[in-house]
């Protein structure tokens, strides 16, 4: 084992000798966090609203006023027919139009009910869903207010008022939610790409020949090659957490030791994956392609962008084998909810088993003799 430090020293020399590597390692977490955390924002603002008010009553003006007051909508046009409005959507001038029928106020006062038409451009499903939800909320508010003012005589069904409380992220801040997950991707990138490519590079350049005829043992070489990236990835995580705290004010409710401890374990899995890929490839290009294939699946199925619970059952089964999903979960649990070791014991057990399996397979696959 005494040769391991020399291999590590050599690796660090080589890594930092590349002019791009040092800035890349320190700038990557900052840039990725800044770009992704601001970009991966699910709130939909500035929905272009088109109004077709055929009633021109006090009630309709009040409803329109409420839409205009909303931060989610901007009024981009008004017309006197649904045809013009749908044309506006066709042209992309409007995302949503609201048609208020003639007799809207009269029906409300007389029958206690009326109908409104809302049409949404559903090219972007997420945006369409959220826009119509915002619109419904405004209409509901309007409805409640209207009834309070005018509906004295109209029998009202007893309404249940539902109050929602968002625990652990009271303001439903997307950045609080996203930043811990993005940090996971960052750490995964370093582990899987850099480490995998680093070993394949020795094959590609031929230096592995010279190593193979030396008395270096298999495990010494592997540890020596992977340890530097284990360290770099943890440093990246630390930088990322600092940026998360300073820029995005993400809460650190749980123990940072636990985060780093789990990250250390998680990195064994990711580095093992990199090692495994390097044993089945001959060039950095091949390694890159395979790593990318797994990474895309891991990231998209990690629960970072879409909740795992909303996936079909077979996809949920796949995520059980996705290390990224476990770490994203742990990050959120510990940082936002303050979970302790006992709460995440299952995650730890799975990750530990995973680390043993992947590394065992990789070491078996790695041969010094052809």
């Amino acid at each position: 084992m005494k040769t391991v430090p020399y291999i590590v020293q050599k690796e660090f020399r080589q890594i930092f000798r590349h002019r791009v590597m040092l800035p890349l390692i320190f700038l990557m977490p900052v840039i990725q966090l800044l770009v992704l955390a601001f970009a991966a924002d699910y709130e939909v603002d500035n929905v272009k609203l088109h109004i077709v008010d055929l009633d021109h009553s006090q009630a309709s003006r009040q409803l329109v006023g409420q839409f205009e007051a909303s931060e989610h909508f901007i009024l981009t046009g008004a017309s006197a027919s649904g045809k013009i409005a749908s044309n506006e959507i066709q042209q992309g001038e409007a995302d949503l139009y609201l048609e208020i029928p003639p007799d809207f106020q009269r029906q409300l006062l007389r029958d206690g009910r009326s109908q409104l038409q809302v049409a949404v451009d559903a090219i972007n499903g997420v945006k369409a869903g959220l826009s119509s939800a915002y619109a419904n909320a405004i209409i509901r508010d309007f409805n409640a207010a209207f009834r309070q003012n005018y509906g004295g005589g109209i029998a009202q069904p007893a309404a249940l008022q539902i109050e929602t409380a968002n625990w652990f992220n009271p303001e439903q801040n997307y950045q609080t939610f996203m930043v811990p997950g993005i940090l996971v991707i960052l750490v995964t990138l370093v582990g899987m790409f850099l480490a995998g490519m680093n070993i394949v590079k020795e094959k590609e350049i031929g230096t592995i020949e010279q190593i193979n005829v030396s008395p270096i043992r298999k495990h010494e070489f592997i540890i020596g090659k992977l340890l530097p990236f284990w360290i770099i990835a943890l440093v990246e995580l630390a930088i990322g957490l600092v940026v998360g705290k300073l820029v995005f004010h993400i809460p650190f409710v749980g123990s940072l030791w636990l985060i780093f401890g789990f990250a250390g374990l998680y990195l064994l899995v990711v580095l093992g994956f990199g090692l495994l890929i390097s044993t089945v490839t001959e060039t950095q290009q091949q390694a890159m392609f395979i790593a990318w294939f797994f990474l895309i699946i891991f990231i998209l199925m990690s629960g970072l962008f879409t909740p795992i619970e909303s996936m079909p059952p077979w996809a949920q089964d796949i995520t059980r084998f996705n290390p990224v999903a476990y770490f994203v979960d742990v990050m959120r649990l510990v940082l936002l909810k303050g979970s302790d070791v006992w709460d995440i014991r299952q995650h730890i057990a799975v990750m530990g088993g995973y680390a043993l399996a992947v590394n065992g397979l990789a070491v078996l696959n790695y041969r010094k003799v052809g």
Partner: protein
Amino acid sequence: MIQTQNLRKSYGTTPALRGINLQVQPGELFGLIGPDGAGKTTLIRILATLLLADEGSAQLDHKDVVADYRAIRRSIGYMPGRFSLYQDLTVEENLTFFATIFGTTIEENYELIRDIYVQLEPFKDRRAGKLSGGMKQKLALCCALIHKPTVLLLDEPTTGVDPVSRQEFWEMLQRLKAKNITILVSTPYMDEASLCDRVALMQDGAILQVDEPDSIVNSYDKPLLAVKTANIYQLIQDLRQFEPAHTVFPFGEYVHLSLKSVVWPELIHGYLLDRGHADIEIKQAMPTIEDIFMEKSQV
């Protein structure tokens, strides 16, 4: 000391070695001479414990390449055909790294590499990737020697190196031999054969002949002529049609013609004149390793 018994290796259905039996004495400078694809690299990689033979066995200093591979790795120096040091580390860093992984230091074995390293020392802070071809080979040799091996396996160390550096490289090998290191070196350059104590001529995975270079050359028993005319291409075509011709191949500006039996040069002259050749020149030629090779590979 290197011994092999009936070594065989195939890549798929392509045989690379067809039963190699070899004896290299301790302290001998032994050459493996043969064209590309003869199986030289495969043989050396099996001896370096990097490749497993399909059949047969091999020992270095009485240690088996399969059973005692770990002991062998401590006692051999191996230089692959392709430059395989860290191009992004400096000369000194490379040497220090390889010394350390063998559990030694540059100082400890400086004596062995001094002759070579003094030439590299002015560039010791230069990255290996920025060295010239000859310098790279010298560095690779230093790295292969830094742990004081008893057997040195060199796979085409002079391929792609300029003639002056090649010359220097062979002088270094002679000095290492004097330090009682067994050296097995492969090369596609026939002219380097004469610099070895003994050589094995290899072709298509088999050894054609093993002997001292002089004996190999002296064993050549066919009349050999060097022929030149104005049209070399036509000359080769015509000589191959020439009934008494045994082998015909270009050799520098001449064509080497070996004959099945002694034929008067006047007869050849007349034959070539009939075929319309001009500026005909015919002279006796001294056989070289290359001639032996062509001779052997005819069979």
